[in-house]
C-alpha cells in the first residue's frame, strides 16, 4: 500500500499545483469532465490490471473498446431512413448492451484459451487480437462514422445523478467506475480467485505445483479484461456520439501506463485496484493539466504575458512521467533487497 499512498500524494500535489496556476482547474465543468475521463480510463485500467497481475499483458483492450462502441452504435443508434449507413438499426439499449458485452467476453475467452491452452505468448496473441478486431470495427463502420443520435443510451456518458442534464455532479461513468472498482476490489483482494491471480503472477510453476487450476484462472483474467474494455466501449460510444474506426486506438497503452503508475508491476504478482484507479487519475490529470497550466509573468518591457504549455508536449510529458515512475519503483526494489541481504548477514554473523 505504500506505493499507492505515494502516488496519491503525488496526485494531490499535482492537482494543487494546477489549481494554483489556474483557478479554473477546480471549476465545476472541468472537474466533472476530468472525472468522466478518469472514470472511463479507470474502468479498463482495472480490467487490464487483472491480466498484468498474472504476469500477462492485454494489447487488444483498445480494439475491444472500439469494437463494442461500434457494435452498440450500429445496433442501438438512431435509424435514419434517408441514410441508413450513417446511423444504427434502432434496437433498444437492452438488446445492444448485452450483445456488445457478450462479444467482448467472447473475445477475452478466445484470447485466454489461445494463451493458456496452446501456450502462446500473451503479447503476440493480444497483438494479433488488437489488429484483427480493429479490422472488424472498420468493416462494421465501412470506413465512415456511425451516429448514435438521440437515444437513451447517449445519456450514459453525459447524464448522471444530481444536477442538470449534461452537467451532472456525479456522471454515470463515475458511478460505473465505482461499481467496477468495488467488484474488482472484492474479486482481487477478498476471494480465492484473486489470491490465485497473485500466486500465478508471483510464481506460475509453484502455483501449478500447489494444485491451482492455472489455465482456468488465467483465462478468466483475460475475460475480465475484455469485459471492462466492453463497458468502457459503451461509455465512449455514448460520450463521443459518433463512432468511427479511430476510437480506442492506443488506449491499451494508456491503460498499461495507468496501471503501472499505480503500482501494478509488469513483473506480475503486484498491484491493487486502488492503485490502478490512482494511476488513471494521474494520467488524466496530466492530460488535462497540459491544457490548464498557465504561468503569468511580465516580460522584459513589463507587459503581462501568460505562458501556456504546447499541446504537442503531451506525449513527451506522459512518457517522462511513466519512466520516472518505473525508475523510482526499481530503485525501491533495489533498496529493499539490499536491506534484506544486510539483515541476513547481521542475523547470521552474530
Amino acid at each position: 500500500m505504500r506505493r499507492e499512498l505515494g502516488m496519491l500524494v503525488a496526485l494531490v500535489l499535482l492537482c494543487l499545483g494546477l489549481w494554483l496556476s489556474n483557478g479554473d482547474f477546480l471549476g465545476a465543468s472541468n472537474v466533472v469532465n476530468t472525472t468522466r475521463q478518469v472514470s472511463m480510463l479507470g474502468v479498463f485500467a482495472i480490467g487490464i490490471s487483472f491480466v498484468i497481475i498474472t504476469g500477462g499483458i492485454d494489447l487488444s483492450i483498445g480494439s475491444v473498446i472500439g469494437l463494442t462502441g461500434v457494435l452498440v452504435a450500429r445496433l442501438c443508434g438512431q435509424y435514419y431512413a434517408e441514410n441508413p449507413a450513417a446511423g444504427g438499426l434502432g434496437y433498444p439499449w437492452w438488446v445492444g448492451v448485452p450483445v456488445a458485452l457478450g462479444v467482448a467476453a467472447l473475445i477475452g475467452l478466445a484470447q485466454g484459451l489461445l494463451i493458456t491452452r496452446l501456450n502462446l505468448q500473451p503479447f503476440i496473441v493480444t497483438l494479433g487480437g488488437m489488429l484483427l478486431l480493429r479490422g472488424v470495427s472498420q468493416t462494421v463502420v465501412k470506413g465512415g462514422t456511425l451516429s448514435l443520435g438521440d437515444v437513451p443510451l447517449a445519456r450514459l456518458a453525459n447524464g448522471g445523478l444530481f444536477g442538470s442534464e449534461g452537467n451532472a455532479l456525479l456522471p454515470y461513468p463515475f458511478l460505473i467506475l465505482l461499481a467496477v472498482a468495488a467488484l474488482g476490489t472484492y474479486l482481487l483482494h477478498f476471494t480465492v480467485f484473486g489470491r490465485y491471480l497473485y500466486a500465478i503472477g508471483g510464481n506460475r510453476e509453484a502455483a501449478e505445483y500447489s494444485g491451482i487450476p492455472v489455465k482456468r484462472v488465467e483465462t478468466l483474467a483475460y475475460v475480465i479484461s475484455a469485459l471492462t474494455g466492453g463497458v468502457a466501449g459503451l461509455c465512449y460510444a455514448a460520450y463521443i456520439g459518433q463512432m468511427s474506426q479511430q476510437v480506442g486506438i492506443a488506449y491499451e497503452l494508456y491503460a498499461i501506463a495507468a496501471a503501472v503508475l499505480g503500482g501494478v508491476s509488469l513483473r506480475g504478482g503486484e498491484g491493487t485496484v486502488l492503485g490502478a484507479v490512482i494511476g488513471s487519475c494521474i494520467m488524466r490529470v496530466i492530460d488535462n493539466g497540459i491544457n490548464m497550466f498557465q504561468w503569468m509573468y511580465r516580460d522584459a518591457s513589463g507587459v503581462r504575458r501568460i505562458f501556456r504549455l504546447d499541446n504537442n508536449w503531451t506525449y513527451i510529458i506522459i512518457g517522462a512521467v511513466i519512466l520516472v515512475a518505473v525508475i523510482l519503483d526499481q530503485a525501491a526494489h533495489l533498496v529493499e533487497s539490499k536491506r534484506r541481504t544486510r539483515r541476513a548477514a547481521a542475523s547470521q554473523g552474530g
Partner: protein
Amino acid sequence: MRGISKSFPGVRALDGVSLTLGRGEVLALTGENGAGKSTLIKILGGAQPPDAGEILIDGRPVRFASVRDAKRAGIALIHQELMLAPNLDVAGNIFLGNEARPLGLASVLRRGATRRAAAELLLRVGLQHGPDTPVARLTVGEMQMVEIAKALALRARIIIMDEPTSSLTAGESQKLFQIIRQLQADGIAVIYISHRMEEVLDLADRVTVLRDGRHVGDLARGEATHGKIVALMVGRELAANYFPPRPAVPPAEPVLVVKDLLVPGAPAPVSFTAARGEILGFAGLVGSGRTELMQALFGAVPALAGTIELEGRAFLPRRPQDAIARGVYLAPEDRKRHGLVLPMTIVQNVSLPAIGGQGWGWLDRGREQRTAEVEVARFRVKTPSVRRQVVNLSGGNQQKVVLGKWLALTPRVLILDEPTRGIDVGAKAEIYGHMARLAAEGLTILMVSSEMEEVLGMSDRVVVMRERRLAGILGRAEASPRAVAALMTGGQEASPAA
C-alpha cells in the same frame, strides 16, 4: 584468495575463507552441499563480488567487477550446468564473447580463422568432432570438452570445474582426467570441485575442505584419505543421534503400488511399492531420473504408460491437482522455483493449496491465518510474524513452510525431493525429526536425496536409480554405502533389480 566472506538473504555463505593455488596445481575443493564451494568459485570467477576479502594473482591484488574481468585475468569457470549455446556450432561456442573484433560489434566474423583455431584446440582436448558440428548434437561429455577448449582459447591460467563428472559416463570421466593431467603439464592450475572421493584422491595434489562457509582443512596428496576428508566435511556436529532412531517397519499393506510406470524420457518402465509408515529413499546420481519419476507420481509431468494404485484404487495423475485431490503431495527439489511464491507471505503460501476447497468465493482470512500459525508452531519456523514474505526466510525455514503447506491438508503420500538441500545442520536435524514422526504416524514418505548419509540414515528401503532406470532396491540391512554407490554408478556389486 584471502579472508573471503559473502552473505545472501538468510545465509552467510562464506566466512573468511582463504585459498591458495600454485602454478600447474590441481586443487580439489570439497564439502557438503551448501558448504560454500559454489559461492567461492563464483567470486573467483567474477560472477559475484565478495563482501570482504581480496584476491591476489602473482602477488598482485585484483578486483573483478564481472566475469569478463576474471576471464581477462586468465580465470575460466566451467559450470556444472554447461553454458553453451546449443544453436551455434563448436567453433562459434569456443570463441563466443572472445571473437577477434577490431571494429567492435560491427566486425565481420572471421569464420575461416576461427575454424582453424578451433580445430587446433579440439585436437588438444581430444574431441573427435569438427569445428562446425552443432553443439546440440554433442553428448554432455563432449560439450564439457568444448567448454575446456573455450577456456584454452582464453589462454586461461586457472580453470575451475564445478562437478564436471556429475553427468558423465565412466569412460568420459577417464578422458576428462587425461585432459586435466595434460593441462597440468602445460602449467595450467585447476580447481576441481567434486563429491566423488575416488576422483578427488586420484587427481588432486591437494584437497581443501569447506564446511558451513568456513575453510576447515587442507590435506596434501600423501595425507589425504577418504576417511580424513569425510571427517573434515561433516565435522563433529554430526553425532550418531543426528538421525532420529526409527523402529523397523513391520511388513504392512502397500499404500502405493507403482507398476511398469513409463516416465517421459526414461528408457524403461519402473515398478516399486511403498508401505504405510515407510520412508522409501531414492538414491542416484544427478540426472538419474529420480526427480522425473517423482514429477510423474505428482502429475506435474504425467507418465506415458503404466499403472499406479493408491490405497487400492487406481491413481493416474494428469496434473498436480489430481495428485493433491488424492493426498499425494510433493515438496519439490527446487523449492524457490516450484515450491513457494516468494513475494507472498507465509500465510498465503501455506494456504495456497487449501483455499480452493470451498470454491473461488470469499477468502476466510481468519482461518488461513490460524492454519499458518499452527504450521509455523509445529515446524518451529523462525520468523517474527506469519505475515512475513517467504523471500525473507532462510532456506531451512522456507522448506518448513513448504512442508507446512502440505501438512495443513491430509497427506497420504508425501514426496520429498532433496528435502534438506541448502539447509543448515540444525534445521536438517529438525526436518529429519519431523519425517520420523510423520512416518511413525503412518504417513508414507518417498524421499529423493543425493546425500548418501541422509538416504541411509532415514530410509527403510532404498531404491537406487541409474541412467533413468531402476538399478535396484535394497532393504535397510543390505543398504551399505558401498552397495548403494555400486548400484548408482553401475559398479561390479550391482545386484539384479528387486
